[in-house]
């Protein structure tokens, strides 16, 4: 799918929306990113987004920020990447600063603990749901095995860089083999 022509204000607006409505990090927010950029605005297709996500995981720094940079660059070059990153971060930065400046930490740390716990519980479920939706995009029979292998490797402590590289390499070989068998 050829990339849509996207204006800088529209790019900033999209990532402001994402930065305001996405919780729990990039993997928990994949459904939102897809809904906003693929389904609603049609700036890229699902396959292109799926290609960008593992690359974002390999880029140093926060993966969500990396994904914004990748998408912004694909759409509008260096400036687009900077704008996407800034717009993604702006809502959270404003909120964190406001709360840090106005709310006494000692008064709120205990009060926020239960909210934080339930948000973490929600995020765990959102992540598992996102994993299921991602896995459902592919039709390779060995896909479940690959997903499980990557999960176990990461939980066991394998570096994300290695896990992603090995997963993509092994997966490419498996997919190619299945296509040859068919």
């Amino acid at each position: 799918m050829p990339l849509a022509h996207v204006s800088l204000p529209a790019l900033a607006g999209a990532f402001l929306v994402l930065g305001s409505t996405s919780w729990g990090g990039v993997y928990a927010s994949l459904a939102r990113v897809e809904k906003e950029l693929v389904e609603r605005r049609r700036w890229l297709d699902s396959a292109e987004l799926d290609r960008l996500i593992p690359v974002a995981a390999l880029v140093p720094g926060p993966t969500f920020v990396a994904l914004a940079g990748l998408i912004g660059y694909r759409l509008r070059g260096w400036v687009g990447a900077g704008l996407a990153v800034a717009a993604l971060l702006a809502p959270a930065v404003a909120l964190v600063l406001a709360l840090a400046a106005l709310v006494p930490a000692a008064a709120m740390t205990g009060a926020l603990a239960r909210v934080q716990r339930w948000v973490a519980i929600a995020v765990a479920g959102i992540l598992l749901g996102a994993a299921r939706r991602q896995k459902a995009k592919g039709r390779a029979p060995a896909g479940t095995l690959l997903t499980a292998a990557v999960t176990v490797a990461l939980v066991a402590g394998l570096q994300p860089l290695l896990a992603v590289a090995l997963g993509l390499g092994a997966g490419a070989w498996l997919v190619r083999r299945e296509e040859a068998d068919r």
Partner: protein
Amino acid sequence: MSPLQIFFVMLMAGLAAIGGGSGSLAVAQHAWVETGYLRPELYAWTMALGHVTPGPLSTAVVGMGYYLAGLPGAGAALVGISLPTWAAACLAARGMERFRSLLEPLMRPAPYVVAGLAAATAVSVALPLRLAVHEAAAVAAVTWLVGWRSVDPVWIVAGAVCVGAAQQLFS
């Protein structure tokens, strides 16, 4: 601590954190909390803010920068953590365009690898919580709602905030 020092700590943290920003948060703890620049309760508070506010979790470092050196410190932390990621993302995007035909076969299994990344992150979030039975059931329910019913996660998080706030109020 000066804004310039904050910037360099975050710059190094960002460059070293491959696979997510949690490495940056660990660097911040080591550089600021263990050395006594930042009180542990302020570190914990900004981490909590990072979790309950939308967007990337790593924006917690902006709060830490604020406590260390006011608004200039917050700005320095923000630029330090996002600058290398922005530059590396642009270079990676250029590389993807240039080597598209070579990378295409490698990217076909991407959904399975991303599913693995998401599942592993779920485990890393859930394990330290030591979930009670009803909390594990909540995780399962949310998984079904998001994974099978495509419920928007915004509503899930809003519900979680309400549950947590209600628990706090009535406990």
